[in-house]
């Protein structure tokens, strides 16, 4: 048994690096551009605008109910392309391995990443492996960068959001965040909740093919949850968003666990959810369409867009004004509110600080 775990030499670019690449990476990723291990992949790109996005995955634990870091690394990046209206085509995958990381775990992560990429219909076309000393990493970190193409005729963005538009989500919120939290050191508890982690490009592409006009904007509410993502929308557009507390799809297990830990599902991360801002007249049809897709069974309209309290509407001004101001103060900018069942309102803010479990 020569080595069962990652050694520093696996990252020095020499013989062990080559073996690792051959015996683990190339065995799972099969694309002509990868096979020669040249410096860059040379690829064909169909007509349309190029879409690019990058994300690094540092999730803890690496394996969690409903997924693992490999699956997440594909879903996260594919989803960022998908919600931008793009068809994801290519992924690069870069690994930071910590000395001592078990090779068996690496192989499991790589296999999962490859499987998810196949399911999403994207090809891993370039990669990189670095090994850092023990105590300078945490098992494995993965960066995936995605490239895709936005077909002609698609135009999503803040600039298309209007007062009166509806806010839709394709299913229950907070599942991923809670599933991860339940495995975090010092908080462990058993939960039936699984991460919703999944590539959504199939769902978004279907939606955009049918509702190119009615869908104004999409975004995946990942870190910071639905609350933070909608605050970004409100701040960037200068429009208010009013959520209906009773309309929010939250699994009762998530609600229960969140109360146990003193958390709010609105701030828990999602990895298979998309927030859709759509024309009000299309809402019912969009919901019907979503609910026919496996990733949209619990789709719901959760709120609406209203005129903001003052200046700063439109993406240009919104963005300009935002720079260097920090969050949350100043008058006349878009806000997110939640209407309670009783009819009262409360603010829904951005996440501020890690959602630590607390006693009070």
């Amino acid at each position, binding site marked *: 048994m020569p080595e069962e775990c990652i050694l520093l030499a696996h990252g020095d670019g020499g013989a062990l690096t080559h073996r690792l690449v051959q015996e683990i990476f190339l065995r799972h990723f099969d694309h002509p551009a990868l096979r020669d291990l040249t410096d860059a992949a040379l690829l064909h790109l169909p007509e349309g605008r190029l879409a690019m996005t990058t994300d690094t995955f540092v999730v803890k634990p690496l394996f969690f109910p409903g997924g693992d870091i490999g699956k997440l690394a594909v879903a996260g990046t594919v989803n960022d392309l998908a919600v931008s209206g793009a068809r994801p085509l290519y992924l690069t995958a870069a690994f930071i391995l910590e000395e001592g990381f078990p090779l068996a775990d690496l192989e499991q992560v790589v296999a999962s990443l490859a499987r998810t990429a196949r399911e999403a219909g994207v090809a891993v076309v370039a990669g990189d492996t670095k090994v850092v000393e023990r105590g300078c990493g945490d098992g494995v970190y993965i960066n995936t960068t995605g490239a895709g193409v936005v077909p002609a005729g698609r135009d999503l963005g803040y600039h298309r959001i209007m007062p009166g538009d509806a806010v839709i989500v394709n299913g229950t919120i907070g599942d991923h965040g809670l599933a991860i939290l*339940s495995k975090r050191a010092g908080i462990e*508890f*058993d*939960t*039936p*909740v699984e991460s919703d982690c999944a590539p959504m490009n199939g769902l978004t592409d279907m939606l955009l093919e049918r509702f190119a006009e009615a869908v104004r904007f999409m975004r995946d509410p990942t870190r910071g949850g639905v609350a933070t993502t909608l605050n970004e929308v409100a701040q960037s557009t200068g429009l208010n968003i009013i959520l209906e507390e009773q309309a929010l799809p939250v699994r*009762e*297990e998530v*609600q*229960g*666990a969140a*109360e*146990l830990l*003193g958390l709010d599902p609105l701030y828990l991360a999602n990895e298979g959810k998309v927030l859709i801002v759509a024309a009000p007249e299309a809402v019912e049809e969009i919901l019907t369409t979503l609910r026919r897709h496996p990733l949209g069974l619990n789709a719901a309209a959760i709120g609406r867009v209203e005129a903001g309290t003052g200046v700063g509407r439109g993406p240009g001004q919104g963005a300009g004004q935002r720079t260097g101001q920090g969050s949350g103060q100043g008058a006349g900018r878009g806000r997110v509110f939640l209407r309670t069942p009783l009819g009262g309102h409360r603010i829904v803010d951005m996440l501020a600080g890690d959602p630590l479990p*607390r*006693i*009070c």
Partner: protein
Amino acid sequence: MCLAAPSRITAIQEGGFLAEVESFGNKRTVGLTLVPEAKVGDYVLVHAGFAVQILDEEAALDSLKAWEEILAAAKGGA
């Protein structure tokens, strides 16, 4: 002042110091020292990792009934 969430005791560990509790499918282990009289099946309030009180279901139902009656009366009276 103090968050506390209701959970059902599903098991009590040997010695009675710890119990498994369940709440909406979520399971945790909590300290049982502060409610030594608790039994499996009891609902308890959990605070800071300890069960701190046994919930009185009858009292809860009584409250509900009282409210409903009062509100019904008020409505009737209005």
